[in-house]
């Protein structure tokens, strides 16, 4: 374990931690980007160069940006004054500790994993392309379809309804003001 790798690991972990802890969402997103970069570096270390670069392209380049845009679209860019923790956060914390404990124990106490020490493979992009086009062409096409569907779906879900162009009757969404919706929800809660 060389020193740069260790630093990379630590930075990644720290970034992940802070991303979860920060009150400001935009800061959290930026931390996330740093975390992703750190993970990409780890990939590079593990001789999965293509995956590493894909990580940077997809995660840092698209997802982190997407998160920032979503934060801004939901007007959550300011630092909130109230608590950022949900009710029952302690149970969640306990459970996450338990999860880590279980996983870590499983990893450390497994004799199978103790023997993993293979030589570095030499992978070129051409090999990846060959495999993608021959052996894994079906999942490739399906993934393409799925991406298309996801894109269309996301657009439809987030589509801002304009008055008059909506095919569905307006009464179900527009004429029920938010107040009555929350009142209805409150009533349901009261009935429980």
């Amino acid at each position, binding site marked *: 374990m060389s020193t740069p790798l260790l630093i990379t690991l630590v930075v990644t972990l720290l970034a992940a931690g802070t991303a979860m802890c920060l009150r400001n969402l935009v800061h959290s997103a930026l931390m996330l980007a740093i975390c992703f970069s750190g993970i990409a570096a780890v990939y590079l270390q593990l001789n999965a160069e293509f995956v590493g670069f894909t990580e940077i392209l997809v995660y840092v380049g698209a997802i982190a940006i997407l998160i920032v845009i979503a934060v801004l679209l939901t007007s959550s860019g300011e630092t909130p004054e109230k608590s950022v923790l*949900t009710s*029952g956060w302690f149970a*969640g914390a306990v*459970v996450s500790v338990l*999860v880590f*404990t*279980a996983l870590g124990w*499983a990893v450390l*106490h497994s004799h199978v994993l103790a023997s993993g020490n293979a030589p570095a493979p030499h992978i070129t992009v051409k090999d990846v392309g060959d495999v993608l086009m021959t052996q894994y062409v079906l999942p490739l096409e399906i993934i393409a379809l799925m991406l298309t569907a996801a894109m269309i779906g996301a657009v439809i879900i987030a589509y801002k309804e304009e008055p008059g162009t909506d095919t569905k009757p307006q009464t179900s969404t527009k004429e029920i003001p938010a107040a009555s919706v929350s009142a209805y929800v409150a009533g349901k809660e009261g009935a429980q």
Partner: protein
Amino acid sequence: MNWIVQYLWLIPVLPLVAAGIIAVNKQPQRKLAATLAIGAMAAGSLLSLCAFYATLGHGEGVYREVYSFNWLQFGGTDNWLQLGWVLDPLTAIMLVMVTFVGMLIFIFSVGYMAHDPNFMRFFCFLALFASGMLGVVIANNLFLFFVSWEIVGLTSYLLIGFWYHKPSAAAAAKKAFITTRIGDLGLLLGMVWLYAQTGTLNFYDHGHGCMETTALTAMAAHVTIGGLAVSTMVGLLIFLGAVGKSGQVPLHVWLPDAMEGPTPVSALIHAATMVAAGVFLVARVYPLMSQSPLFGAGLYLDSTPMLQVITWVGAITAIFAASIAVAQNDIKRILAYSTVSQLGYMMMGIGVGGVAVGMFHLITHAFFKALLFLGSGSVIHGCHEEQDVRKMGGLKKYMPVTFAVYAIGMLALSGFPLFFSGFWSKDEILHHASNWSVSHVPFYLGCTGALFTAFYMTRQVALVFFGSYRGQDEASSHGHTDHAHAHSAHDHTPHESPAVMTVPLMILAVFAILLGVIGTPAWPWFDSYLTGEAAKFDLGKLTEHGTLSLMVTSAIIVFTGLGLGWLLYGNRLRKTAGEKDVLEAAQPAVFKLLQNKYYIDELYELTVIRLNAFAARLCDFLDRWIFGGVVLAVSYLFLGLAWLYRLMDEYLVNLGFDAGCDSLRESGSGLSKLHSGRVQTYLRVIGVALVLLIIFLIWGHKA
């Protein structure tokens, strides 16, 4: 087989059919009823004469023909219950007597019951009785015999209680039925035992019947309770039936009370036929009674134990009833006690002399007693339903025909020598009694009884027919105001009865005289007819030493009785109704005892009736509290169970169900809390599940 034997069944069935037709008629049709009944009896008479003729002239040996048919099948093919009838001299002579006397009494009833609104019912019951009696006579089978016996008992009850709105009549009917029932119980037990012992119900069955030698010797050899032979025990039980039906002591108490019925009933049933059925029964089972037990023979001195019992019972009854008759004031009651006494004579006759002796007296008694009863009926009718002899008198000039025939009957009953049948029949009995090897006491009792008989009959005739009519004293002391106008114009003087009533009387009187001819020692035709020996006409027999002395003795007794009676009652004629009886004045205590029938009724009331009432109360208590208590307890048990079930249902099942539903609802509402609708909660749960899964997998692998 002789055609008459095949059609013998018609004789009882014709009156039965007549009774049936009369019973289903809704409108009173007196002429039809009377014609049917009398016609049936007349046809029966003709058939009986044919039967009688068939039994004559068979030379030596008794003519006996049996007709049986299979009726019910028990089990296997050979086990048939047979029914049937028998035609022998005993049967034939009884058939002739019953149908002929019955026919005459039926004709008499047409006149006697003319004013009665229940004419139809009367004739229906009379016809039913006739069929029952004739069934008794011809039955060859224990079963048929018992059924007919019961029919006779039933119709006796119905006819005694004919005027059922009178409480005394209803009570008398009940008394008759219950008292004879006691006897019938013995009869039934005897018959069942007889069947069990011999295996056959038929009396005569070509050698296999119960009255034939094979069965009888078997029964005589079999020893049973108290060292007695079975034949003796069975005979005792059957005799008990005869005691009940024929009114022997101690079961005689019903006969005088039976006079509550109409007079033709008293004549037919309680003089001529039904009470004679008991004697007939003894005659029918005489082979059983005369069968000596096949052991200890020396004890019995030529007479079997049963015959001795019969003789003693008969003798005691004869003297007992005759003494009571002396002190009675009701015209019919005198005759009733006379009947009881004469029945005693008949039993005695069978005991000492055999079937022929007793049956001869039975036949002659039937005629003159029926005559006497019908005559008394005529008297009662003529005196406008008056029955007390103290209130009658001098009827000789009002009812000459009745007087004449009544006198003939009375002389026959008393046994007036030579001309009247009663003399010959009673003499036969006394003759055999005097020769009885066991004891002479029955003979003396019989002679004393004959004395009493002559005495009380003279008393009765004197009080009724001689002197002056005492009924006017009662009439004049009546308040005429409480009678209807018609009654005040009513003639209180007695009148003669119409021809429909007097003609049968005259016919009976003729027979009362003539029947004596067939039984004299000079020509013992009756004896020979029944026993199958030849009879020779020999006047010399009359003058034989034993016979002549007995005839003279009995003549003296009769004249003494007649003279005493005339002296006390005929000579010193009673003037008023309320006068004390001569004997009563002389011996008040004894007279009172006799008048109250030796207080036997009161004795029975105190002992048996009380016991019975107590037993009835006990049974009621048992039924109400013990058996009813058990039923109540069971029902309460079920009620309790039902209450328990309801409790269980309400509290256990319902509440349990409610609790179940409640817990279900609560668990449902509890489980619904899992659906918090919050994603992070779900995520936490998934995290926990992941941990558990890892643990499970690792441990699973480790093992």
